[in-house]
């Protein structure tokens, strides 16, 4: 064993954790090496001195103070003794009621928006049509549909929306809503009668929504050029 190794073993040796054969090697080396013997001596002296270090005494009343503090901590007023905080908005009944009312109002408004125009039918009896004067053909407005006509409707004159149809008069791009396309004919007859115009001699049928869907692009172009309404001749 060399001095370097002996020095590294000194700490473990003094703890009594060194294996027996290594202990013997170390002791043999220390016996022959003065430098290592001195290191071993210093190590032992330090450890003995460490066990007998001067001890500082605690004050006599340490326990008393400690238990007083423990008692004080145990009897310290908890949060429940403190003044109550203002409860959160969500913990107040009025907060919940307000929220429920607000949500219900929003729901009603949404139903109103979605439902308006969904089921209203055209009131035929109302004289809301406007005839043009003079020589022009019978251009009219009948209860404009609330939504503006789409470009597609303007071109084709008809479009489908669920079970109902829209028919468009091309003259002023207003849309009127009808339940089916056969109704359009009777509407025109009624309009002409009220306006004192000659009865239409014939109609060009609108292309129905179902038809349009089945048309290809070329046929759609043809439909777009198709006259929507042929009024009585001579107008």
């Amino acid at each position, binding site marked *: 064993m060399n001095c370097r190794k002996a020095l*590294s073993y*000194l*700490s*473990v040796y*003094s*703890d009594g954790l060194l294996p027996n054969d290594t202990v013997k090697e170390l002791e043999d080396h220390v016996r022959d090496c003065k430098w290592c013997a*001195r*290191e071993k*001596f*210093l*190590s*032992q*002296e*330090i*450890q*003995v*001195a*460490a*066990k*007998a*270090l*001067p*001890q*500082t*005494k*605690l*004050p006599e009343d*340490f*326990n008393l*103070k*400690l*238990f007083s*503090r*423990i008692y004080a*901590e145990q009897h310290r007023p908890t949060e429940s003794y403190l003044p109550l905080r203002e409860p959160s908005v969500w913990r107040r009944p009025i907060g919940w009621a307000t929220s429920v009312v607000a949500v219900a109002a929003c729901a009603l408004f949404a139903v109103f928006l979605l439902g308006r125009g969904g089921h209203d039918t055209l009131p035929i009896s109302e004289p809301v049509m406007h005839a043009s004067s003079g020589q022009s053909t019978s251009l009219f407005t009948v209860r404009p549909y609330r939504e503006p006509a789409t470009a597609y409707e303007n071109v084709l004159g008809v479009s489908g929306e669920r079970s109902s149809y829209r028919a468009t008069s091309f003259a002023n791009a207003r849309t009127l809503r009808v339940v089916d396309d056969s109704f359009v004919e009777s509407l025109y007859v009624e309009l002409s009668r009220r306006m004192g115009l000659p009865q239409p001699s014939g109609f060009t049928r609108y292309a129905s929504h179902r038809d349009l869907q089945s048309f290809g692009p070329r046929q759609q172009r043809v439909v777009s050029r198709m006259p929507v309404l042929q009024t009585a001749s001579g107008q």
Partner: protein
Amino acid sequence: MVSYNTLVNRYKDRLFNVLNRMLSSEDEAHDLLQETFLRVWQHKMSYDFRFAFSTWIYTIALNLARNELRRRKKIKFLDIFDFAEKLPAKDERLPQTGNLRNLLDGEIKRLPEKYKTAFLLRDVDNLSYEEIAQVLSVPLGTVKSRVNRARAILRNRLKPRLEESYELSKGTVLPVSIL
């Protein structure tokens, strides 16, 4: 409460001296010791019976001490007398004379914190390496290494003072420090 009083009596002096040597301040050691026992009382239900009570209470005390040392690093306390009289630094004002125990006490305070803690627990408080590893939450090998390093530092620093003792010891088998 009676049994708790017994526990306090059993550990208070050992813990107080460890804290005192770590913090170099009796007042702070006193406060932290009180805080340690208070926490033990408050968290007595969370004590894990698989581990030794000594390990648990040492862990609490040393954590408090480390927190205090960390706080000191953030807030530097300066002694106005150091400026006024330009005294040497505190570490240099160690007793140059006296017996080995006083010298060792002074040198322990100068050790780096991690070596000081390991040395105090092992050589002053006689905790096993396994217990120290649990208290400090470090591997066993690290504890052995720190204790070894602390002993080596102290040996080198105290060597000049112990030379005389060594010469004296040649005629006796007893440690010179107890003569």
